[in-house]
């Protein structure tokens, strides 16, 4: 099954980014296709290449990048939300791309399910 995911909150502050990640990993493990993960609102902060959490903590941004590399998951950051919050090409982590809100709507149309994680 094709599953789309929407993440509305940034890393660390709320659990949303963690829940979305664990859900995506489980979906892939079950043989489903994660069609796209769209980052909106403060969710765009998940794409910041400049985060440097304590070493003994989970590396949320790096985890997303690895997911993109290993499973070819399409990680899309909303351009309007990103500009508002200071995420641009220059501080975009590997595996993410910046695009329009249309990508979220498209995900809703193309995926069999859309699952939302937020606050």
């Amino acid at each position, binding site marked *: 099954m094709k599953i789309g995911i929407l993440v509305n909150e940034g890393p660390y502050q709320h659990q949303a980014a963690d829940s979305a990640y664990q859900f995506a990993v489980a979906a892939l493990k079950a043989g489903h296709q994660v069609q796209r993960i769209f980052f909106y*609102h403060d969710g765009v902060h998940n794409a910041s290449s400049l985060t440097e959490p304590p070493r003994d903590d989970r590396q949320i941004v790096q985890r997303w990048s690895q997911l993109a590399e290993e499973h070819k998951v399409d990680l899309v950051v909303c351009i309007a939300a990103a500009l508002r919050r200071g995420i641009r090409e220059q501080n975009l982590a590997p595996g993410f791309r910046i695009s329009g809100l*249309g990508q979220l*709507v498209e995900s809703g*149309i193309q995926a069999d399910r859309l699952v939302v994680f937020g606050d």
Partner: protein
Amino acid sequence: MSMEEGETTGVVKRFLFVNRKAPYGTIYALEALEVVLITAAFDQDVSLAFLDDGVYQLLKTADPTGIGMKNFAPTYRALDDYDITKLFVERESLEERGLPEDNFVVPVTVISRAEMADMMAAQDVVLSF
């Protein structure tokens, strides 16, 4: 939005946007509206639900100039240009807030909680912010 993005092979799904948060205290209401406007251009079957504190989003008396923000409620009027007319407001949510049924910036359909629940159950894609 590019034409390319708009190409979704003629599929029409029932999209529901659920608005349950008050405006201005957080950005969710405003950024939700931005998605709705984009979705409209994709020729989908779009509905908007306003319940709980979300009913406050449509009050025509809003004036956020004193807190340095823009009043985005009039933007809802643009939805009519896209033939998006299914704006549902929950009656019980209005009653709990002591609000009348006719103080909104756009025409809405006031429905009961039970009708809201039925409407929700009939959707293909539900977006909440």
